[in-house]
Every structure is written in structure tokens, then in C-alpha cells.
């Protein structure tokens, strides 16, 4: 199965979980990112995610491979939604199976952290007051800071919070 996917439709969590089952694994850790109704004091009614898909998939697969190669995961997978999402919807899912919980938790954390820093995916927030804005591009215009990634190999300038 592809280890990283970009998906336009709601996710089938049981099917995703089933792909990570392995008799050598005693631990399974997941992360779900949900759309919340407020951000930075603004009331959010929904999000639109946009991806540069060919590179997002390529880089996403690299991240998942790193979790297996470097962090002891036996299997790892990640799916990121694109398109319009309402408050409460699942935006990103990470699943990791491993022999023990320590590797599973660490690898799961690694995947979501790297996904947030490295993938060419953008979030536009739509507010209850009718306005909208691309997160990290428009609303947060503090001076750029250099954000080290967990691997230290790639650095990317971000505006404001991550």
C-alpha cells in the first residue's frame, strides 16, 4: 500500500488500521488532527487544504520511510485531506505499528511533526465573520524565524506559529 496519501474524501479509519496490523507488533499508535473552531482568537467555520500533490506525496513517503528506518517503526502510514473541511472533521491521520509502545509513540510523533514542516500543503481558514486567510502567509506576519526540523537537514522559514 502507499504509505502516504492525499485524500479528497473522509477517511476509513478501520481500513487504515488494518493495513498496519502485524503479528510482530505489540503496539499501535495513531495521531488524528481535527479542524477546531477557533484559532488565534478567531472563530473558524471551516478550512480549505490545498496541496502540491506530486511533491507532497514524494516528501510524505520519505517521512514515513524515515520513521521506519530511523525510529524503529515496523509499519507507518499517513493520510492528509485536501479540499473543504468543516469544524470537527479529521484533517490528517498518522498510524504506526511497532514491537513496543516507545517506538510507536516516537515514530508517530516524528511523522506528524515532519508532515507539518515539510509537506507543500496549505491551509486556508474561513472565519465566521466572512473573512478568510492562508495560515502562515497572511495573518501572522512577525519577522521570519528559522525553524530547525527534527532531522536538521532541511530548514524552512516560517512566519509565526507552526
Amino acid at each position, binding site marked *: 500500500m502507499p504509505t502516504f496519501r492525499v485524500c479528497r474524501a473522509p477517511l476509513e479509519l478501520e481500513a487504515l488500521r488494518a493495513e498496519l496490523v502485524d503479528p510482530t507488533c505489540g503496539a499501535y499508535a495513531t495521531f488524528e*488532527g481535527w479542524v477546531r473552531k477557533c484559532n488565534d482568537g478567531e472563530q473558524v467555520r471551516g478550512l480549505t*487544504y*490545498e*496541496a*502540491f500533490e*506530486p*511533491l*507532497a506525496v*514524494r*516528501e510524505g513517503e520519505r517521512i514515513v520511510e524515515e520513521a521506519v528506518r530511523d525510529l524503529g517503526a515496523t509499519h507507518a502510514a499517513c493520510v*492528509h485531506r485536501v479540499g473543504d473541511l468543516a469544524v470537527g472533521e479529521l*484533517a*490528517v491521520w498518522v498510524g504506526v505499528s511497532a514491537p513496543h509502545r516507545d517506538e510507536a509513540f516516537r515514530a508517530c510523533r516524528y511523522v*506528524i511533526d515532519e*508532515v*507539518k*514542516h*515539510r*509537506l*507543500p*500543503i*496549505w*491551509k*486556508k481558514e474561513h472565519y465566521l465573520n466572512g473573512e478568510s486567510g*492562508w*495560515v*502562515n*502567509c*497572511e495573518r501572522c506576519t512577525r519577522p*521570519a524565524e528559522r525553524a530547525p526540523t527534527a532531522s536538521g537537514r*532541511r530548514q*524552512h*522559514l*516560517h*512566519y509565526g506559529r507552526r
Partner: protein
Amino acid sequence: MITPNYCGSAQGTQDKRVGVQYYALLRQQAARRHESLLTGARTPAELYEELKRRYSFSLPREALRVAVNTEFRGWSTPLVDGDEVVFIPPVSGG
């Protein structure tokens, strides 16, 4: 001579045709997803500065990354005819 589809300095023999894809805020500000253009820009850095002037992009180049032919590349990578360039605004996935 400046044509509507022309971007860059008037060094006709060095011009190349490149594709540019726009995403997120850049797509909105350029009011297009993709274009093919003739440019005298030698690097993605020069190309971005030209397009930033053309479309009044608000993001400084220092805030972006760039991909050429679906791989992250340095800003000083030489551009060649047929390259597909994507300027990557600050990301916000997850």
C-alpha cells in the same frame, strides 16, 4: 521588446520557456494556477523576483522554498528550457 507573455531581461538568445505553478496565496495573487512563459531568468531566484514584480506578490523570497521538476531545489539552480517551477509559500499542513 516586451510582449504580454514576456518576463525578464531582453537577452533573446538566452530566453527559455518554463512552466510555473502557483499555489495558495501565490495562486490567489497571480490569479492563475499555471502559466508557461519565456524568461531571461537564469535561476529560480531571478524568476521569483520578476514574477513578484509582475504580480505584486506580498511574500518575500526568503519566506519561500522552490521546487523544480517536482523536487526541492536551491534558489541558484540553473534554469533550463522546459523546467517546471513551483514556488512554495510557508506551509501549514497538519
